[in-house]
């Protein structure tokens, strides 16, 4: 019911934008900017680039406002644009691999220390999500982090519903595997079990 109201509200806003109402456009931006940022940042892993993609997404929404099809959900349209832009960015990265000069100056130890820092469960989960293969990551982020219905995820990713379900399930299983040692460790700590010195 709530989702239905949200959907209706989106339709009203985009209709107003089509009639030239900039206040409605501002409202759309405020409603979605952080949601998109959360999804795109997890795909791209760069705050600046993720923000640029979110900006570009809204710009394209504005440019193509007249061609929005009211048979579809507005959020689906928005996510599709954003994820296509993110995919393009990732493809570009694959084509041109950048080397950080910092890596070449013997700072490997500092980097290793930095990698060890996230120790609480959300941070470990965040790292585990980052390390997922792209197709699982996208499905997982949309379904479990952004809480989009399976049907919408299928439309956004342009793949069959069954494939989305299996990818999300696979992503969850992979995450569970990655989190297992950390969760067992924290359970053992909470129960007061003696741990090897190396883990402390």
């Amino acid at each position: 019911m709530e989702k239905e109201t949200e959907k209706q509200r989106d339709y009203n806003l985009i209709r107003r934008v089509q009639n030239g109402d900039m206040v409605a456009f501002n409202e759309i931006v405020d409603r979605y900017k952080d949601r998109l940022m959360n999804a795109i940042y997890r795909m791209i892993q760069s705050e600046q680039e993720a923000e640029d993609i979110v900006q570009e997404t809204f710009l394209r929404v504005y440019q193509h406002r007249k061609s929005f099809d009211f048979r579809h959900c507005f959020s689906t349209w928005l996510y599709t644009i954003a994820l296509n832009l993110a995919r393009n960015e990732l493809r570009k990265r694959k084509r041109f691999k950048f080397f950080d000069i910092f890596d070449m100056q013997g700072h490997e130890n500092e980097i290793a220390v930095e990698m060890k820092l996230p120790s609480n469960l959300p941070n470990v989960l965040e790292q585990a999500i980052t390390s997922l293969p792209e197709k699982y990551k996208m499905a997982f982020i949309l379904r479990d982090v952004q809480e989009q219905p399976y049907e919408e995820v299928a439309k956004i990713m342009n793949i069959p519903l069954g494939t989305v379900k299996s990818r999300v399930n696979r992503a969850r299983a992979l995450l569970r595997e990655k989190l297992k040692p950390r969760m067992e460790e924290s359970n053992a700590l909470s129960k007061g079990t003696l741990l090897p010195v190396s883990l402390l």
Partner: protein
Amino acid sequence: MRCRKVRYFLSAYCNDELSERRTKAVREHLDNCPECRREEAAVREMQSTIGDLKGYTVSPDFNSRLLKKIAEERFKETRTKAFMPKRIPILSLNRVAPIVAAACFVFAFIFAGGIDGILINEEPPATAINQPDNSYATVRENTDQTANVHRTKDWAFQQQLARASRIKDLMTRLSNESPFSTFVSQPGRTPAGRINTATAIYPGGFRTFSAPETLTVREVSIGN
């Protein structure tokens, strides 16, 4: 249901995504299997951790930067419309018709002249011998008509230039009054088609400026 299958369905079970029949089967298994129950607890813990993930937010100047880009986009649309009106005057019927008529006339004359040139050594028809040659006078008249057509076309172009210059004046005025604003709207027009208003957008609101002759300023603020 065996442990292996239950583990496969466990995350979907914890998210209430299974059918009633499967949910029942998994629940029955969990009641009898402590190992799978531990796994279920772990999956539920992971799920609750998703809710604790850090939320990323855009930078504070996100909206103003975006609105600036949108303003540029709107200006581009306006500029295109100013120079390329929907109805291109040179192609409208009332402008094309005289040009076509004049062109036909000129072609007809050239063609006739050519025929005359070709037939110069031939005997003129007996009926035309005693008639005066007034074709030169006709040509002069026709040339004047063509000149009129060109003047009409120039006038349309001048109108376009004047419109563009009015937009430019308004923009200069906007940037003088509010240095951080950007010209956004398609200019408002009087019923006669003259530009009389333009809207500027700047962090915090819109402002509509009128053309120099009316001198009224209307301000619209974005509702917070």
